[in-house]
């Protein structure tokens, strides 16, 4: 599947819908969307990952980049990551820095 990263910002909540394979070739597209979101005054970042099939090191790097740019006060939600993606995030310890859920409910 072709990689897609679509951003929408509603009520200061940035949602990025990810689909396909997030690797070294596609990570720059994801980073672009993160940077777009960072330009806005957002209170949380929601990554809809249901259709993300694969994540390589480059994808993790962008996630860490987002967390470091947003700081501790802006939460990042990972919604419905597939097993492989979820395990990768857990094995590398990044799950401590984000909230992993099956759905996003606005607080």
């Amino acid at each position, binding site marked *: 599947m072709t990689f897609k990263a679509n951003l929408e910002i509603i009520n200061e909540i940035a949602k990025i819908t990810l689909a396909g394979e997030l690797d*070294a070739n596609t990570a720059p597209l994801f980073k672009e969307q993160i940077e777009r979101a960072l330009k806005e005054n957002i209170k949380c970042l929601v990554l809809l990952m249901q259709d993300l099939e694969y994540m390589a090191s480059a994808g993790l790097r962008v996630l860490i980049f987002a967390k470091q740019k947003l700081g501790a006060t802006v939460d990042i939600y990972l919604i419905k990551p597939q097993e492989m993606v979820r395990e990768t995030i857990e094995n590398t*310890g990044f799950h401590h820095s984000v909230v992993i859920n099956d759905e996003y409910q606005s607080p």
Partner: protein
Amino acid sequence: MVIERIDIHPTHRYEHFKLRRGRPFPFGATLVPGGVNFSIYSRHATSCTLVLFKKYAPQPMAEIPFPEEFRIGNVYSMVVFDLDYENLEYGYRFEGPDNFAEGHWFDKSKILLDPYAKIIGGRDVWGVTPDWNNIYQHRARIAFDDFDWEDDRPLEIPPEDLIIYEMHVRSFTQHPSSRVKHPGTFAAIREKIPYLKDLGVNAIELMPIFEFDEFENSRPSPVTGEKLLNYWGYSTVGFFAPKAGYAATGKLGMQVDEFKALVKDLHKNGIEVILDVVFNHTAEGNENGPYISFRGIDNKTYYMLTAEGYYFNFSGCGNTLNCNNPIVRNMVLDCLRYWASEYHIDGFRFDLASILGRDPWGAPLANPPLLEALAFDPILAKCKLIAEAWDAGGLYQVGSFPAYGRWLEWNGKYRDSIRQFLKGDGNVGEISQSLQGSPDLYAPAGRSPATSINFVTAHDGFTLADLTSYNHKHNEANGENNNDGTNDNYSWNCGVEGWTHNPGVNALRQRQMRNAIAILLVSQGIPMLLMGDELGRSQNGNNNTYCHDNELSWLNWDLLHQNSTLFRFVKNCIAFRHAHPVLRNRQHFQNHDYVGSGYADITWHGTQAWKTDWSNHIRTIAFMLCGKHALQGMVEDNYIYVAMNMHWESHWFEIPGLPTDMQWHVFANTGCNPPNDCYEPGTEPLLTNQSSILLGDRSVVILIGK
């Protein structure tokens, strides 16, 4: 408004690559604005070429010669701009003399691994047979330092408070009974942190985790036909990179993150991480070994060579790293600083550390600069530095390792004396020193009891279960005609060689394992347990399983149910040690009463209180620690009395009297059946007869006066 940096821009071109003169330091590949700074040392090369690959590609995508003006002294450095560093692998070619007698092995046809590579691909998934036709086997990649450590840092647990658990990453969880998601990996150790916490250890010592090649010298077993591997990994390919095959995410190139996540979680649970590091030799082996890195970059700098150009072999593994050459010394320092600062590692155990004290021609140095530099390094200042204080060339320095007030030692003499005592050799004089933190070895030089890493078993040699089940090693499965592994095991099989149904023999073995654990955990110094000894893990008498990726090496977690009483005993002994600072003194005993308690800090006894028979062949001894002298009188602890009977007959021990307001309670008696062999600290029952106690044959009693 802040202006972006405008001082780093390309000045040169090679084909379509934009280049600039690089920075010589740091060595390795470093991300800089707009590009990657490549820097590498070679004294004897005449030219150097950077070789770039797309990740996994069989052939290079580019080869960029370092312009001569980019070499400063013996360092080639260059910035290459606009590289897709996520998709990049790199190596080097060096040109120079190829003259064996002169020690030069330059060969421009070889692509060489950067000694400072922070991630190494090529063996991404454990045990996947490599493509031997690949022209670049171990492939350097670029690492990132964006891991989120939050507020983590090394724990700095005082050395005397440590209880170390030595383990092999893969062996710990590879057995199916471990029931972890990713067996044999760093991630799996994280899953087992609750087990380590429950056991009570506060440091794990990982057998080598620097990138190595499990296929080095791989061969079929003459016994089973199964492939034998370089399983333990005491043969480093790259000193700065974690073993990819130990990471569940190694296939994704995230081994750095996964290992850091393990360290972070262990720290959160109060457990330090000590790495077993192997600087005495490399995976390039002897004159017949492969070109991987050092040999083709600057053989004469990195290796100790004979006058004829052959490799010295003080390591027993074919070559010897030239650690007191200033370049190599700096590489070792850079490496350890990197692991301490980038991975928050708490300590290092140096394999065959005596080699690090030899000069470039092999002679032992009185004041080895590398050992001194490590001892006084500002970044390593709080790291534990532990020497395996001997080498394969006959240098044995237990008690005399150049310490500079910092170095701790694996105490091989402790291991041997306790083993001999356990099997009934009656060496009470010798073990009295071992029990006190070996003041005979360390006190004269002002070195503390915690200089001594006390152990009865370690990865080299028998497991504890085998120490009580075999008189001789049984290494036939290693394919070396049983010639490998030590013959000096000081073991005793309790009457039958190997596995048996005999209940008497099995009961005695259980008791002997408990005796060893009890003695280890009441000894002054730092106790170290071998993975699985708390569960009675056996290697079927093999005392050198360096090549076995199978059940001989793997920890069978079902033993936790089969040997639950042994686990309970070990756990209680660990908790007992943590509970009693009098067992963890910072200074050696003074053998007199310096706090006015009416008791000396330590007193010695035999079957009669206050009288000790130090004759050879005496197999009974006891000692009492005065709780008021704990930590040199800084804190008040209970009194502790330990009686040991390694005779094959029972003996009554007269117990020394306590201050009037105290009574003796029983913490452990290995002569009793579980659950009366030991108690949870704080629940010890009152001893019925306060004046004497019968110790069964080959048993240990620990009393607590409170």
